[in-house]
């Protein structure tokens, strides 16, 4: 066994700052989902917009600025479940990262 390599390995410190930044990039990407021929990003902005629409059928601009006719209830359900699912996964990984030496 290479002792120098072993010592170097044990002295390496986990980079919490970079790991948190990486998690942010990873989970921002995981918020994407496709619906009704459009691409959407689950999150407070989309959910607030959907809450603000009293009509069931509206036309919204997707991530690529394409107007898409959507059922607000369907999109809201999908966006909310995706957002919560990914936020929970983010929290689990964030806590694991915080415990790293």
């Amino acid at each position, binding site marked *: 066994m290479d002792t120098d390599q072993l010592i170097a390995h044990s002295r390496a*410190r986990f980079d919490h700052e970079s790991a948190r930044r990486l998690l942010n990039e990873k989970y921002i990407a995981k918020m994407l989902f496709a619906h009704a021929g459009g691409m959407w990003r689950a999150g407070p902005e989309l959910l607030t917009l959907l809450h603000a629409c009293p009509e069931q059928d509206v036309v919204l601009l997707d991530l690529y600025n394409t107007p898409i006719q959507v059922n607000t209830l369907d999109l809201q359900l999908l966006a909310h479940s995706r957002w919560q699912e990914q936020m929970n996964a983010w929290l689990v990984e964030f806590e694991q990262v915080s415990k790293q030496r």
Partner: protein
Amino acid sequence: MTTGALIFAFNNSEIDYLAMAAWSAARIRRHLNIPVAVVTDSTECVDAFDKVIHAVPEGSGTRHFTDFGTNVSWHNANRTTAYELTPWDQTLVLDADYVVASMQLAYTLQAQQDFLCHRLAYDITGLQTFDDLNYFGRNCMPMHWATVMMFRRSTTAELIFKSMQMVRENWKHYCNLYGNPRSTYRNDHALSIALNIVNGHVLHQPDIAWSLASLTPEHELVQTDADQFRINYQTAQSQRKWIELKGQDFHAMGKRTLMDIVAHA
């Protein structure tokens, strides 16, 4: 409509791109559930792919690979023929050194766009800003990355690849036009210029809705589980640090450590 991945793999004296592509093909099938075609001049490892397209390597230039510490001859110019060569109606072109560790790219296949690629890349370790890679030339033109490209059979996609070919054939002219000091051909620059031409010289074009995670060659990459990788690196103050990537795709710009992983797979 058929959907599949396409990887270009032309080996050189130092790097076994075909072995990398074969390793990547298994990961693409597992995560994205799509068939994989390879464009190569080799007859080895062909069982690893759903389709094998034989082609003569083009654009043999030399490039310095910091992780090998030497100049290596490099065949990168075939990328412009992806539109002609692909057997699929919807194609995901991936670099052989792009590591698929999640189903994230499935979202590019669901997007109703004719062509998508990454506009921005970032350094996984956070040590570099990547400003010199995300922009190019005297006028700091935005650079689009040819590492991952999704395209559908369409007039737009065909024009983009034809324009890339035109840029490649007139490389010196376009280098002068864009104030690009780089004398050797680079796919990312040709793609960026082609997108600029096809989209009518506007800076806003549809792109992949997240940034490309990239690992530069000077860092060490170790696989700790099927979709888990540890990255060992040193800061400018020579502090040894590490981070872990779990279920996250990334571009392994350093071929040497990726080759070690592939060899032990």
